[in-house]
C-alpha cells in the first residue's frame, strides 16, 4: 500500500474525530458515510426524526471539499427542484434541455432527505443517476460527478416499487435515539447541531479519489471463501441478499482494506457485510449469525462502525479506546461521584470489565482503563472503617 494512502487514511481519521467532537454518538454514521464515499456506493440512513441524521451528514459533507447538493423532498416536489429547470433559451429553439448548474446532476456529494416522498418522475430519473451516474432528461444527457448520494428516511417503504428503488442504496444504516448515559452530552452540544463549524482539516476531492482508486486495486482473493461462508450462514438463517448486493459488498470490503492501510483484504475487513443487509431486524440477526466469523473485524479509522457490525473483542476494544481517549481529554478539574463525566467514565469501566476477562484486556485499553479508574477513584468517599476479611 503506497505510503500516501496510509497518510490519507490517518488524515481521514483526524477529520472524522474533529467532526464527531461536535456530535453525540454519531460516529458510526459519519464513518459509514466515509466508507461509502471511498467505495463509491450510496448510503440510506434510516431512523426516527430528530436524531441528528442531517446534522451528521452535513458535517461530513462540509469536511469534504466537493460540490454539495441537499434537498428535503416532499410529495409535491417537482423534478426541476432537484435536476434544474428547463432551459428556456433552448426551448425556444425547439429542444428540451435542463439547466443543471448548481443542481443534483452536477453535485459530487448529495443528501436527499425524505427520499421516498419523491414522485415517480423524480425517482425514475434518480435511478439512472445513482446506478450509472448519468443524467438523462429530454435532450440533456450528461455524465455526473457524483461520488456518494446519502438518502434519509424515517422508515423503509412497504410499496414494492419504492422498495426496488431503495435497493439501489447498497449501504443501510439504522440510527436510534441516544443511550441514557449520553443525555447530558446531548444537552451540552445539541443546541449547536445547526452550526457545526467546518472541520479545521479538510479532505479534498482529489484525496478521496486517491483512496477510491486504491480501493479498486485491492486484492480481494483472500476474502472470497470467508465472504461466501458468511453469505451461506446468512441464507441458512433466512437472511437473503440479492446477487447484486453480494457482489457489491466487495467494494465496501475493498474500501475498508484501504482505510486499514492494506492492499490485500483479510477477514478483518468483512464487517461491512452487515451494513449491506436491508432491514434492521435482519442486520441484528446477521450480527448474531456472523458473530464468530466477524470476530477479527478491525479498522482504526472507523472503530464505531466496526463495533456496530461486529461485537468481536478487537472491534469493541477499538471503539472503547476511542471513547475513553475522548472522555479523558474532557476531564473536568473537580469530580464528584455522580457528575456526568464520572458516570460516563464508570460506564466505560463497566464495559471494559464486563467485556474482557482479566488478562485479556488489550494493552492500549488497559492503559486507558487505569487512567479512568484513577479518575473515578473516590477520594471524597466517607472514610468508614474497612471490615476485616471474613
Amino acid at each position, binding site marked *: 500500500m503506497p505510503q500516501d494512502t496510509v497518510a490519507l487514511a490517518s488524515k481521514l481519521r483526524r477529520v472524522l474525530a474533529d467532526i464527531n467532537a461536535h456530535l453525540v454518538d454519531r460516529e458510526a454514521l459519519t464513518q459509514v458515510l466515509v466508507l461509502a464515499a471511498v467505495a463509491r456506493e450510496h448510503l440510506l440512513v434510516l431512523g426516527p426524526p430528530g436524531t441528528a441524521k442531517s446534522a451528521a451528514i452535513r458535517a461530513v459533507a462540509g469536511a469534504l471539499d466537493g460540490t454539495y447538493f441537499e434537498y428535503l423532498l416532499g410529495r409535491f416536489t417537482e423534478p426541476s427542484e432537484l435536476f434544474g429547470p428547463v432551459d428556456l433559451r433552448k426551448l425556444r429553439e425547439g429542444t428540451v434541455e435542463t439547466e443543471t448548474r448548481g443542481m443534483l446532476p452536477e453535485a459530487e456529494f448529495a443528501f436527499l432527505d425524505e427520499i421516498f416522498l419523491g414522485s415517480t418522475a423524480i425517482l425514475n430519473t434518480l435511478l439512472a443517476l445513482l446506478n450509472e451516474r448519468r443524467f438523462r432528461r429530454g435532450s440533456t444527457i450528461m455524465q455526473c460527478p457524483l461520488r456518494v448520494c446519502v438518502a434519509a428516511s424515517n422508515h423503509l417503504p412497504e410499496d414494492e416499487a419504492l422498495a426496488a428503488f431503495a435497493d439501489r442504496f447498497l449501504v443501510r444504516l439504522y440510527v436510534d435515539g441516544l443511550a441514557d448515559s449520553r443525555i447530558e452530552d446531548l444537552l451540552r452540544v445539541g443546541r449547536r447541531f445547526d452550526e457545526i463549524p467546518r472541520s479545521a482539516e479538510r479532505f479534498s476531492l482529489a484525496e478521496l479519489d486517491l483512496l477510491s482508486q486504491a480501493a479498486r486495486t485491492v486484492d480481494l482473493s483472500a476474502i472470497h471463501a470467508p465472504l461466501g461462508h458468511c453469505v451461506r450462514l446468512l441464507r441458512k438463517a433466512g437472511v437473503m441478499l440479492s446477487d447484486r448486493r453480494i457482489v457489491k459488498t466487495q467494494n465496501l470490503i475493498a474500501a475498508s482494506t484501504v482505510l486499514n492501510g492494506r492492499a490485500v483484504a483479510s477477514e478483518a475487513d468483512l464487517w461491512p457485510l452487515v451494513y449491506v443487509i436491508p432491514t434492521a431486524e435482519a442486520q441484528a440477526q446477521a450480527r448474531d449469525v456472523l458473530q464468530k466469523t466477524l*470476530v477479527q473485524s478491525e479498522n482504526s479509522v472507523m472503530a464505531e462502525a466496526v463495533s456496530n457490525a461486529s461485537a468481536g473483542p478487537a472491534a469493541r476494544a477499538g471503539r472503547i479506546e476511542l471513547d475513553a481517549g475522548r472522555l479523558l481529554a474532557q476531564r473536568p478539574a473537580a469530580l464528584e461521584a455522580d457528575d456526568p463525566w464520572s458516570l460516563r467514565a*464508570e*460506564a466505560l469501566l463497566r464495559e471494559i*470489565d464486563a*467485556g474482557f476477562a482479566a488478562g485479556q484486556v488489550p494493552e492500549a485499553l488497559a492503559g486507558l482503563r487505569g487512567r479512568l479508574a484513577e479518575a*473515578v477513584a473516590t477520594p471524597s468517599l466517607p472514610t468508614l472503617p474497612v471490615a476485616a476479611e471474613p
Partner: protein
Amino acid sequence: MRLAWALRAEPLPVVACFASGRQPATLDRRLQSLGRPRVAGLRLIETVQGTLILGAESALPWMPDLIWLGREPGAAQLLLPTQWQPGLPLEWVEAACVQRVGGACAVIPRVAYAPSRQADAAELLLLATAGARPVLEARPRAAA
C-alpha cells in the same frame, strides 16, 4: 462433574455485580457516596460469600475486581458472568442450578474472579436471587 467455562464472543449486557472477600465494605462506601436517585433502583442480597447488587446497568457502581453478571435470553432464571459461558447446554445448567438453590440464582464460577482472587474462590458459587432488598432499605442513609 466439573463444569467447564469458555469466553463468550460477545459479553452479556450487565444486570448485576458481585463483590466478594473484602470488597463488600468498599462497595458499601461506594453506595453511600452515590446520589439517592441512582441508588433508588438498586437491590441487594448479602451472604457470607459476598454482596450481590442488582439493577440497571447505568446505576450499578463501578469498582475494580467486581464480577459482572448478565442474563441469557435462554436461561431467564440465571445470572451468569458477562464474559463466560458454561460448556454444557444452558437449559441443563439452568435446571441443575435452579434445583440446587430452589429458584433463580446467580452462578459464579472461580474463573470469573480476578486471578489474584481465584485461589480463595469456590469452584462454583450459587446465590439465590429471590428476596433481594432495595439498597435504600438495607442501607438507610443519614440524609434520607
